[in-house]
Every structure is written in C-alpha cells, then in structure tokens.
C-alpha cells in the first residue's frame, strides 16, 4: 500500500478473447445481442462473425488499471471509444501510462491494440483514487 506513483509510470496487461468469451460475458452481463453470440447474425449484420461486447473490452481496460493500483475498488472513472471490434481469438494488449496525479487521484491513458497492431479502443482514459 506504500506504493508511490509518478506521472509517466507505465503498465501493460494482455488479454486473449478466447473462443467462448463473448458467450461467457453475455451470460454474466445479460448482453445477449445476437451479434455477440450467433455467427450467422454477425454475418448478416456485416460484421463477419461474432464480435466481443465492447463493454468487455472496457472491463479489461479497467482491470488493467485496477491491477496497476492494486485495488479494483479504487477505479473512479473510465471513458472509451470503441474503434474496432474484438473477435474471438484476438489478443488485446493494454498499455497504460499515468498522465496526471492530482490530490488523491491519478489519471491514466490506456491504449488497446490487437495482434495486428490495430487500435480497438481510442482515447481511453481511466482514473483511480490513490487511497
């Protein structure tokens, strides 16, 4: 808990979207939109198969910062733009950096990139309290 943070500190978190993750996330979250669970509907919707719920990708960005600060209960804010779908078997690398520390709060900018180097989130910002 005595850990100190400085502007510029970085962290990395890697998550694989395994084959059934959109279905597991659907069960846990209630988001059963067929574009996440039915490849045929995904094709009709022009998405070339199922895509992971954007909110699961958001959760992984939150997870990355929660691990970095050591307590998921300290997350205070998250803001993301979903720039590209995550598909089953994609590997997403989250790289974060502290951009500001004010009073009892730190702000991080987080990038999320798939295995082809494409951004799946844009402008992601996660804030956490320091104690």
């Amino acid at each position, binding site marked *: 808990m005595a850990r100190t943070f400085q502007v510029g500190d970085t962290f990395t978190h890697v998550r694989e979207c395994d084959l059934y993750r959109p279905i597991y996330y659907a069960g846990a979250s209630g988001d059963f939109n067929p574009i996440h669970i039915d490849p045929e509907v995904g094709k009709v919707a022009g998405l070339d198969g199922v895509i992971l719920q954007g909110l699961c990708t958001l959760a992984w960005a939150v997870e990355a910062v929660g691990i970095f600060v050591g307590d998921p209960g300290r997350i205070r804010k998250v803001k993301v733009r*979903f720039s590209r779908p995550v598909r089953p078997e994609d590997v997403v690398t989250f790289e974060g950096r502290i951009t500001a520390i004010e009073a009892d709060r730190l702000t991080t900018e987080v990038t999320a990139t798939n295995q082809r180097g494409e951004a799946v989130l844009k402008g992601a910002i996660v804030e956490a309290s320091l104690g």
Partner: protein
Amino acid sequence: MAIDKRFIGREYGPYTYTIGAEKLREFALAVGGAHPAAGTPGEPPEHVSPLLYDDDAAKKGPYGDIIAFPSFAVVFAIRPFGAAVADPELGVNLLMLVHGEQELEFLGVMRPGDVMTTTGRIENIYGKAGMEFVVVATESRNQRGEVVVKGLWTGVIRS
C-alpha cells in the same frame, strides 16, 4: 432515416436492481477470463483481485465484503439505454446498432445486497459521417440515495 431530435430529453426508468453476491462473482470471473461450468463460475485466474470473489479475503480487506467489479454497473445501468434504442418511436434498427462510446463514473463501491435504482435520459441525437448517434445519460443510486454510478452511453446506428 434520421432519428427525430424531438426525443432528446425523453426519460426512461426508474429501474431497480438488487445486487447479489454470486452475480458479482460470476461477472468478475467472466471478465477475468475464468471458464464457467455448471454450478461454478470457474477457477479465478491469478490476476483477478480476491476482493471481487473471496469472502474471507474481502472481509479482511478495505471494504468488509466482496465488491462489484466496477463495470458490473453496466448490468443494471444499461437499462435506460436499452429502452431508448428499443423505443419503437425512435425506430432504431438494432441489427445496425453498435456501441460507439462509453463513459462510467464510480462515486463509490457496490456490495452484495445493495439496491440500485437507475434513471436515464436521452442527452443527444445527431448524425455524423452518414451514421446516427444516440447518447443516453444514466444515474444509479443505492438504497441510501447516494449516487454511485453515472454513465454516458453512445449508440451508433450504421447505415
């Protein structure tokens, strides 16, 4: 077809949701990468905080009970957004709807037994780059009337 801007300001809710411990565990472990099976949410991967699933560890921790993974809030706070995009008067083609942007603010933690009440309001409707955007703001209060989660949900209807 453009969505009529006169729906800006339309309100949805209140919707009430009681937070259950097993649902919190299930969500935290599904996000964390566990493999659920009948009767269990799966073995927790090492990177998942025990504060999210382990009663004993959580009792000794800073919150005295397990807490919700922060974005567990979407499970109930999405309701006004879902109601807005499914509102027949708006006429959104759900097959063409994708999630464009999301903002969540957490003013406190959520524990099992908390009763969350969510209301929402269409903040904006606009067209950009040939697509339609619907923005819904939500606010979720616990049983003590404290605002715990604020959300800003942006749906994009592809053309």
